[in-house]
């Protein structure tokens, strides 16, 4: 620690911390504005770089079909973030010119953060080491089954005022999907609304996994894939003109009927199937988790 003062040859017992030697504020560094400005620009440049790296990585994968391991993406972003953080700490927060004690505080605290992240993540990812079934989740997405207050009819639980809802054994995402589907006359109308909404909000319309009849293609979008753990897909904004070229005038329901007529045979089968479903939306809905 900083006991060097106390044992230095020039130790003054009247002033163990050397406060008078420092003499007013001459120990404080006034950082030049130009330095700070340079740091600001460096930070902005690094921000641009990190965005570029992320997008480029997506593009490379999508265009060239090279699968870059997922950790490369994370590592790149994190290295840049660490560089940026270091710049902020060193110059804006003036650790470079400060007493080393303050830096020590930061380092020790970061060390604790590391320990925390490391062990917690390690445990939650290494449970199946000896017996693999222990690592698996019993139910994907969770059902809430068995937890206090779960009910089967989609109403709020017995805990008054609880935000907990019961989904009848469905994951909450599935449950909402089913609710939505039930509120539409047909699946087609629902999907049409979905794509329309996606376009309005400027988000990229991914094909939804539930969209088995490929209304996506029917509506003229042809960008069915999305990012997964293994492979990144470019996000919105990198395929300019995607909507402009392909976006059909799909807002009216009759348009869908037209589109429907043009679909290939396989899609037609699917569609027919779904149309039957529309009468009793829930009956045939596949229960993914079996609960």
């Amino acid at each position, binding site marked *: 620690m900083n006991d060097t003062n106390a044992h230095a040859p020039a130790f003054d017992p009247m002033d163990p911390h050397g406060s008078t030697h420092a003499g007013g504020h001459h120990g404080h560094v006034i950082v030049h504005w130009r330095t700070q400005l340079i740091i600001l620009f460096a930070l902005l440049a690094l921000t641009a770089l990190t965005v570029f790296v992320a997008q480029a990585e997506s593009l490379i994968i999508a265009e060239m079909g090279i699968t870059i391991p997922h950790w490369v993406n994370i590592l790149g972003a994190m290295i840049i973030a660490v560089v940026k953080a270091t710049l902020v700490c060193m110059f804006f927060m003036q650790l470079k010119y400060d007493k080393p004690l303050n830096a020590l505080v930061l380092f020790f605290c970061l060390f604790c953060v590391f320990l925390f992240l490391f062990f917690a993540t390690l445990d939650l990812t290494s*449970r199946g080491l*000896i*017996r693999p*079934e*222990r*690592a*698996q*989740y*019993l*139910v994907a997405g*969770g059902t809430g*089954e*068995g*937890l*206090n*207050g*779960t*009910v*089967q*009819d*989609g*109403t*709020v*639980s*017995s805990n008054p005022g609880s935000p907990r*809802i*019961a*989904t*009848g*054994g*469905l994951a909450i995402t599935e*449950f909402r999907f*089913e*609710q939505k*589907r*039930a*509120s539409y006359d047909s699946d087609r109308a629902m999907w049409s609304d979905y794509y329309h909404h996606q376009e309005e909000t400027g988000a990229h319309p991914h094909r939804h996994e539930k969209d088995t009849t490929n209304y996506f293609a029917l509506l003229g979008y042809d960008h069915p894939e999305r990012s997964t753990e293994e492979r990144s897909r470019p996000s919105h904004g990198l395929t300019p003109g995607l909507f402009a070229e392909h976006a059909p005038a799909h807002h009216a329901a009759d348009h869908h009927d037209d589109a429907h007529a043009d679909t290939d045979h396989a899609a037609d089968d699917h569609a027919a199937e779904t149309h039957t479903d529309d009468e009793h*939306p*829930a*009956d045939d*809905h596949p*229960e993914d988790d079996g*609960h």
Partner: protein
Amino acid sequence: MTTLAITDTIQEWFFREEGSTEAVQSLDAFMHFLWWHSVFWFVLLMGLTAYFVIKYRRRPGNMYAVPSPSHNTWLETFWTVVPSLTLIVIFLFGFWGYIDKMVSRSDALELNIKGAKWSWALTYPDGSGSTTLERIDEGGVEFPVYYVPENTNITLRMSSTDVIHSFWIPDMRVKMDVMPNRYTGYSFTTPPVPDDADKKDMWVFCAEYCGDNHAEMASIMRVVSLEKYEEWNRDKLKGMNPIKLGEIIFKTKCVTCHRVDATENSTAPSWKGGAQFLGQTFGYGFPVQFNNGTSLEARDANYIRESILNPQAKVVAGYAGNMPSFDGQLADVELEALIAYYQSLSEHGPKMDDGAVDTEEPAGESPADAATQDSPTDDTAGQP
């Protein structure tokens, strides 16, 4: 001889009896080692303390402390390194014993344990559950009994339907938490049945705090000879009177909350016909008023069945309705047995005429139906 006697006494104080399998004995031996190790250090340290306190107590002639070094690098290094070495040994012993419990043998009998508030459900590899219930002690409390064959490797695959529980068999010196979201488990070898008895009972406790009746979440694991186990396995449910079977199931699964007389219940209505609870009358055949304003002329089998499988569907007026669902935990025959038992407790019970065991499933029961028929805005409409 004396050493042995001392060891036996310690064993008795520690674990009440001799360890019954090899694994347990080796763990006990480890515990004995830790004990003697601790005794050694404790006696050494306290002996020194007592000696110093007596020898150097303050007396008129001993007002000041005799100067002595306040630091000795060699001594301090010595007493840092030596205990550290013993710690390494202790760690290694602990590690071996642990891995032994975690790895299952290839020939192990896999038992599926499901923890729920506040009972254990055990399923055998053939899919049958354990429904034997026996009076264990004079305290008047009855516990479910799980039969397991002797000298057999057993692996547990455990999960919970609600909160975290912990499956502890003190006689096997092992426990593991039972999680609601994933499987956990451990392995052990069942002990041999003692020569002078035809069975060996081992307690099973829930060790992780799980709420109101945490302390009542106990069972018996009964070790019997292989022949007896197979015999029991065959005769489990054969020809059992449904009312009798219902009573057993009641005492396995329902008794933590429900009672069959009007005096002792604390959390839930009694099953006794005409029992009073929260201003409502309960029991088969009695009328019932629900939270949502509807009512039923008489509790019938359909209603009972729904209440077991989907307790929140119709909640009695004034009642919080926190009964867990038993959907998936009961076989159909068991469900019917429960209904039969419920009926037998009421004067309105069946005289063999009103279709008591009506197995037809009520319409609109399936979860998917329920989920989709309610639009989001209607969420509260059907609430009990």
